[in-house]
């Protein structure tokens, strides 16, 4: 008797359910029709997006805020290539997403047929792994591999290219999804000798600092970090993506270091004698000049990915493993030292060099963001776009909980913030989600307003509108004699009217005195998304600033009078 059969596409949806997938973000097309047909026959939720880039950022925001892989389903050719920016964004920040792409018939591959593109080939430099499935019987196994690879070890995006004949083919219903991956090894526990060596270095240090990165967030090491900080009395600085892993309201928290970090974080780093990176990768926003990065300090690096060890900054001790597991084991070997004088200095630096801005006069972006932070009391999930508003959000949106600050750090992808907020809101239905975006980045993915309206998601889109590509304008102002080139966003739409056109609510704030009232009204509106168009001062620059490629001791607290040299670093 013949075994019961089903299409490979049906089997795929069944496996997604077994993997715990709650919703899929995507947009169909010819090659993806069998997959969308299987979706129609299932009870899987589809979030129909307006562009494939939006779908990948939504899956990304879903994954960053929940820790579960986000799933994207698009068609071949342009549908798939539109996802690549989102895939690269997820790769740079180690976010688990699985991108399922329809593909032309296997017999048509390589023949320049309609909407055919070598998507797996294009993806190689920007994915953790990618698959092209040619045998329908292998599809179940490949999908399980994709989820395993995306969400274990150092997470990352996985692309699965699915030819139409493969997804349409009938396979046995009980086709096994088993797999072996001999080349894929995840090291969880750190080497005990290295852990003991690190413990001795930390116990001995007089002026230590912990630097908490995205790796700590991903491994869920918040409790372990808190235990070490409180036992050892060590101050903590968190990278942009490490925000929230250790509460920013804690008196030993220094906020973000680096290019636009807090003055006290950078000053403390220049003074410290030991820096312990927990899942942070010495990114060039922090170590602009890696060869002479904080030469006075010994360095310990805890990371799950061996590639990161000594990649840029040379370290004195490295532990390869999962942050939570390593810190758990490290704790037992730590002996309380004396950091009292160090903590005193840290307190003084925090007191003397606070983040500041002018509240009087024109409306300031910092004011709007700080007020939103105050009103949401650290309970909101915040997403950002990329640019000045992103750095102001990093500085002024105090983050208390892990997975509550989502930003495109490594890739710096404009257009990320709003769709990421959609993903975050879907993963966290009860929470306040605030998308802090700029008028430049928002316009790159704003068609997703339809998606947010359809899904009735009460996202607060806090639009920091300075009618400029502000970060580039700032660089041109500071380092290129204020020759403004290609940064004026003249022709911006009226964003409140735009909100109306999409059927969502619009608010506008122009004066400092109205900030609290308008934000309060926006927070009280929960019938769907709303845009808060904050028309802010056009010519504000983000400070502190460490010019790209320079050491942290070259930090500028305000615009200097003398002419500045062009920065040595890349961007």
């Amino acid at each position: 008797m013949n075994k019961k059969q089903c299409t490979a596409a049906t089997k795929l949806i069944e496996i997604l359910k077994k993997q715990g997938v709650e919703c899929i973000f995507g947009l169909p097309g010819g090659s993806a029709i069998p997959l969308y047909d299987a979706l129609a026959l299932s009870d899987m939720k589809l979030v129909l997006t307006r562009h494939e880039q939006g779908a990948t950022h939504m899956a990304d925001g879903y994954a960053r805020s929940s820790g579960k892989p986000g799933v994207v389903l698009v068609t071949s050719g342009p549908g798939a290539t539109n996802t690549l920016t989102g895939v690269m964004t997820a790769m740079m920040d180690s976010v688990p997403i699985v991108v399922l792409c329809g593909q032309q018939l296997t017999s048509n591959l390589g023949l320049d047929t309609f909407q055919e593109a070598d998507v797996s080939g294009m993806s190689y430099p920007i994915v953790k792994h990618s698959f092209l499935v040619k045998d329908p019987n292998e599809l179940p196994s490949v999908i399980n591999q994709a989820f395993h690879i995306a969400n274990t070890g150092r997470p990352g995006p996985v692309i699965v290219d699915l030819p139409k004949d493969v997804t349409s083919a009938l396979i046995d219903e009980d086709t096994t999804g088993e797999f072996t991956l001999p080349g894929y090894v995840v090291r969880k526990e750190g080497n005990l000798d290295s852990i003991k060596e690190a413990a001795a270095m930390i116990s001995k240090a007089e002026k230590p600092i912990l630097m908490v990165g995205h790796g700590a967030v991903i491994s869920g090491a918040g409790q372990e970090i808190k235990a070490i900080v409180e036992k050892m009395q060590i101050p903590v600085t968190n990278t942009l993506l490490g925000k929230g892993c250790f509460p920013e309201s804690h008196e030993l928290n220094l906020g973000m270091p680096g290019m636009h970090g807090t003055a006290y974080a950078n000053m403390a780093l220049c003074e410290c004698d030991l820096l312990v990176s927990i899942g942070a990768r010495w990114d060039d926003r922090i170590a602009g000049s890696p060869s002479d990065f904080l030469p006075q300090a010994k360095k310990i690096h805890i990371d799950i990915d061996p590639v990161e060890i000594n990649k840029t900054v040379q370290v004195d001790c490295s532990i390869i493993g999962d942050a939570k597991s390593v810190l758990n084991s490290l704790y037992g070997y730590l002996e309380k030292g004396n950091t009292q004088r160090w903590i005193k200095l840290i307190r003084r630096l925090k007191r003397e060099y606070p983040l500041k801005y002018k509240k009087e006069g024109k409306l300031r972006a910092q004011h709007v963001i700080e007020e939103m932070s105050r009103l949401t009391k650290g309970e909101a999930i915040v997403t950002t776009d990329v640019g000045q508003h992103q750095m102001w959000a990093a500085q002024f949106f105090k983050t208390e909980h892990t997975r509550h600050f989502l930003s495109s750090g490594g890739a710096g992808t404009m257009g990320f913030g709003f769709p990421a907020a959609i993903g975050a809101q879907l993963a966290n239905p009860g929470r306040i989600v605030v998308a802090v975006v700029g008028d430049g980045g928002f316009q790159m993915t704003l068609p997703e307003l339809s998606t947010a309206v359809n899904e009735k998601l009460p996202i607060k889109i806090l639009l920091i509108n300075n009618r400029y590509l502000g970060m580039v304008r700032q660089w041109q102002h500071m380092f290129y004699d204020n020759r403004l080139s290609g940064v004026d966003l003249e022709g911006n739409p009226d964003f409140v009217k735009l909100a109306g056109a999409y059927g969502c609510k619009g608010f506008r704030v122009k004066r400092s005195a109205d900030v609290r009232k308008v934000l309060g009204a926006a927070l009280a509106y929960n019938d769907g998304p709303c845009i808060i168009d904050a028309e802010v001062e056009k010519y504000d620059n983000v400070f502190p600033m460490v010019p790209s490629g320079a050491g942290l001791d070259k930090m500028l607290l305000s615009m200097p009078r003398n002419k500045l040299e062009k920065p040595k670093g890349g961007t």
Partner: protein
Amino acid sequence: MSDFQKRHNISLYVENKPGVTIRIALVFARRGYNIESFVGSPAQDSRYSRINIEATGDSQTLHLMLEQLNRLVDVIHAREYSDEDVIQKELALIKVRCDNNSRTEILQISDAFKCRNVDISDTTMTFQVTGKSSKIDAVSKMLDKYGVLEVVRTGKLLIARGEEETSW
């Protein structure tokens, strides 16, 4: 020789699947390494392949590159064998121009290097030579003055001495 021109011998044990070669080549290209030779063929267990790569680039990048190679899902193992005592062989086919006057001399040279004559015509002779890459360099240099028409080399093959394996 300056450090950035140093030659490195790298041995890989990988899954025998489409696309593996590109992923490996991309790791080399991204950090500015030039691949000088590349030998790949199925291992005893045909689900896997062995690849030997000789590449030039600076030693500092090499460590990073090896880790990046090992990070690839399809790579089971990547190791450097540059400074170790491993068995290294290469095979080359050398086609040299000859006439009645030069033929005997050429045969004497080829004999000295234990080359095998695999083809002979009125105007050419083709030899097969095996051994260390430096030996092949030496043969082609000696034959150069007669007019070498073509040299086809396999690239370096590596295997560890004794019980040690170059994989797993």
